[in-house]
């Protein structure tokens, strides 16, 4: 399964470009690939196994799939699928659709490469692949704000990348290789060496910058809010989660392990992000900026769960990554629907949109409830797991904070829901209609996933989350 998910998108992109096919063809090819990616996690005999066998005769690739990779592959496939459908509604010209489809295929190849990598330097290469694809996707409409936000993202993310490379160089110095196995051996042998601790701190800082955690969040809202509507889904749903959070999980789980100092850093960074992200989100006036700051707050939960440092904590973090990918994509799709029908996103200028757009309003409400951790939606279970993990790891104060911070989540989402969808219908919005089917169908699909994963959570936990982190 592993290798074919990296190679097939490259082959698809080349096939689509050699006889330059139409944008529609590229669009359907990309959608088919994302669907196949989703299915091949559960059914590897659907072609991916055979292709992988064929490729491994020619190449000697150091890849490995474990449970963590599987969860990321599923989240990436769902988000990319929905994001591409959303993008098509906004793509006016065929050439735009062609470029979007190809870039999303390449970004998906980058994500797949990142989650299968077994080497620090390979991770860096694939993080840069994802980053380059997202810089282009953000600026693809060449809007003023998008260029500015994207440039800021480019600079800050590149600084983080340089820090990551510094850390890789230091690890190489100590371990003689950048492979995970060699590094984790070297960390065991020279744990107290200042070079190792410097490398670890640099790596964590770089990833916290890439994940948009609070002291380093300056780039995130601009990039999320100014990107084209479909691209926001992709960025908010998966890109920062793979480049920042997944790499962090992989780094701790497979490479260095947790020490007391690292746990403290993660707990503090996580709780700062939760609280400050939520507080800024309440004051924002732009629909997508509220979602961007809510992302910071939710990523804070994931980092907090990692701070527990136990297998349960990592499992909770992974489950929340999946849930966040689903409900944040859903919310960005809803913001795209609103933007499509009204042409703006300033939340003060709305009111009563729920009467005109019942599906958008309803799915948004479910996503809010899932994000705020209300049962039976899937967000509740991951938050419950996070709190349980913190409690059992003896971080009781942080567990209480996580519970209380859910109230903040409720606050900004209720504010948003009230201003946009509920209340008196604004007179200017009389002739607004429900969003086209191309936007409501993905919304309903994601909504079904949220409810489904919430109701079937024992199966999700037993089949995906617990095997990934080794809890029997």
């Amino acid at each position: 399964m592993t290798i074919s998910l990296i190679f097939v998108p490259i082959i698809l992109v080349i096939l689509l470009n050699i006889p330059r096919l139409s944008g529609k063809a590229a669009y359907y090819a990309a959608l088919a690939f994302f669907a196949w990616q989703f299915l091949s996690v559960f059914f590897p005999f659907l072609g991916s196994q055979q292709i992988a066998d064929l490729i491994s005769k020619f190449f000697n690739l150091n890849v490995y799939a474990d449970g963590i990779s599987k969860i990321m592959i599923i989240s990436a496939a769902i988000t990319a699928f929905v994001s591409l459908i959303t993008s098509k509604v906004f793509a006016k010209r065929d050439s735009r659709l062609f470029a979007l489809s190809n870039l999303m295929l390449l970004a998906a190849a980058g994500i797949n490469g990142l989650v299968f990598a077994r080497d620090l330097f390979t991770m860096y290469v694939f993080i840069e692949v994802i980053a380059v694809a997202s810089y282009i996707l953000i600026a693809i409409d060449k809007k003023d704000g998008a260029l500015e936000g994207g440039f800021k993202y480019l600079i800050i993310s590149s600084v983080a990348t340089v820090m990551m490379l510094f850390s890789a160089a230091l690890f190489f110095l100590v371990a003689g290789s950048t492979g995970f196995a060699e590094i984790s051996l070297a960390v065991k042998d020279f744990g107290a060496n200042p070079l190792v601790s410097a490398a670890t701190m640099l790596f964590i800082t770089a990833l916290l910058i890439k994940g948009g955690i609070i002291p380093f969040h300056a780039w995130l809202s601009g990039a999320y809010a100014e990107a084209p509507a479909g691209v926001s889904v992709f960025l908010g749903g998966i890109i920062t989660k793979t480049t920042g959070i997944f790499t962090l999980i992989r780094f701790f789980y497979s490479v260095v392990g947790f020490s007391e100092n690292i746990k403290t850093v993660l707990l503090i960074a996580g709780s700062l992000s939760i609280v400050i992200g939520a507080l800024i989100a309440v004051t924002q006036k732009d629909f997508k900026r509220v979602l961007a700051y809510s992302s910071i707050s939710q990523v804070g939960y994931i980092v907090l769960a990692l701070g527990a440092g136990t297998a349960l904590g990592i499992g909770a973090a992974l489950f929340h990554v999946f849930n966040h990918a689903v409900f944040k994509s859903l919310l960005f799709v809803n913001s795209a629907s609103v933007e499509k029908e009204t042409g703006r996103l300033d939340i003060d200028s709305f009111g009563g949109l729920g009467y005109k757009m019942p599906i958008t309003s309803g799915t948004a409400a479910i996503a809010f409830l899932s994000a705020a951790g209300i049962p039976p939606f899937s967000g509740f279970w991951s938050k419950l797991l996070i709190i349980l993990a913190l409690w059992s790891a003896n971080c009781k104060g942080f567990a209480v904070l996580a519970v209380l911070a859910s109230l903040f989540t409720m606050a900004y989402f209720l504010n948003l829901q009230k201003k946009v969808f509920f209340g008196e219908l604004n007179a200017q919005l009389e002739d607004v209609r429900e969003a086209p089917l191309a936007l409501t169908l993905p919304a309903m699909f994601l909504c079904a996933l949220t409810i489904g994963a919430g109701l079937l959570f024992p199966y999700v936990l037993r089949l995906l989350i617990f095997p990934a982190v080794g809890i029997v």
Partner: protein
Amino acid sequence: MSFESLILFKCYLITAPVLFVIGIYAIGTTRNIIAMIIGLEIMTKGVTVLLAAAGYFNGKPQIVEPLIITMIVVEVVILTISAAYIINIVKKHDSLDTHNINKLKG
């Protein structure tokens, strides 16, 4: 011999972070977006030197060679994309100054 290489090793260990600081300073103090990219390049040079030194002092320079080459390829792509950004920004604002770019956003 070993003492000498230890001193040399520490020289590299000091120089690479100093280049990082110079790059950060260049990015932080300038208002010109091209100068920011130049700061980024200076930082990347620091990493190149540190990687090569890591291979040299580990006795495995052949292993870091592909890493450095990969890094340079990635760097060129990033630089091309940022050049595209800069040209588009200048087309919109007719200025390279971050203050003007922020002002016009308004």
